[in-house]
């Protein structure tokens, strides 16, 4: 009731849009996970190449496969952020 007294409909919908953008920014924090995980995987791949340089092609393909799998949770966060920005209307 206090909320209805303080804000009219237009102000409330502007506040809702602003909060949706803030939520999208929070959802982008999900990018930390793949960043750390893929960096670790690339480091291990480089170690493996230095130990065995003739397997470079196989190691690179398997690294790319593992990186694409680890990217999934980062993309979950991206899709939530995109949904909040473009699809959440009043």
């Amino acid at each position: 009731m206090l909320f209805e007294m303080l804000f009219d409909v237009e102000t409330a919908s502007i506040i809702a849009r602003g909060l949706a953008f803030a939520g999208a920014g929070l959802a982008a924090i999900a990018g930390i996970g793949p960043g750390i995980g893929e960096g670790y995987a690339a480091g291990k791949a480089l170690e493996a190449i230095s130990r065995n340089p003739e397997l470079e092609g196989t190691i690179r393909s398997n690294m790319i496969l593992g990186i694409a799998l680890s990217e999934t949770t980062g993309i979950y966060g991206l899709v939530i952020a995109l949904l909040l920005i473009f699809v959440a209307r009043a």
Partner: protein
Amino acid sequence: MNINWLSFGDMVTQYLLELPAEIYSSILIAIAVGVFAIVIGNKMKKADPLARPSTAVLLGETIVGGIEGWTMNMGGPRMKGFAPYFCAVAIYLPISFISGMLALPSPVGYYAVPLIFALVTFISTHAVAFKYQKWSYFKRFTSPFAVFLPINILTFPANAISLSFRMFGNALAGTIILSMVYWATGNITEMLFNLVGLGNFNFIAPFITPFLHAYFDLFGALIQTLVFLSLSVLFISAEIPSEVDA
């Protein structure tokens, strides 16, 4: 009293016009791939196995043989029956990702399409598990203890959702980032070129967007197809018992 009577044809037309554009591009790509497959199939049936293969026969042999070999390599020899499904996915998915570059709306950008692919893999996995385990299939819900029943039920759709969301997220991210780049370069071009009178044509985009298209539409497409196929083969072949036990 104004009653808006619509004929059946009007209702059908209204429904068809309100369908998202991705459905139509999906139908177009499916028809193109189907015609391609039927033509090559006919040529392979009539070809002489001992003569030198023509282009179409060689193409068919390479694609089908390659994917069957890869499937049986990763999943074991009993996966041969699933090779047609993986072949269809391997031809359809890259084309539908790349259609974002060809001015068609990418069908993978509509969540129903990757969801159907993930559901086919999911249903195949559980059908194979049921076929080989008969009624002990239901023991997976109460393992290791009976109190784990709610947790196991919640884990049930996790594989399908993550498979579908990976593809959908990659396609959606590419589409939205590229549309934002086109919009931004359009605004800049309008500001800069309105003095000359050519503000309506986007001159800056061809310098920036090819690299983005190459990463999101080409590289991302092939990687996501490979990941989807690898995971499908792994999920389905994990349910097939090894030949030592059977």
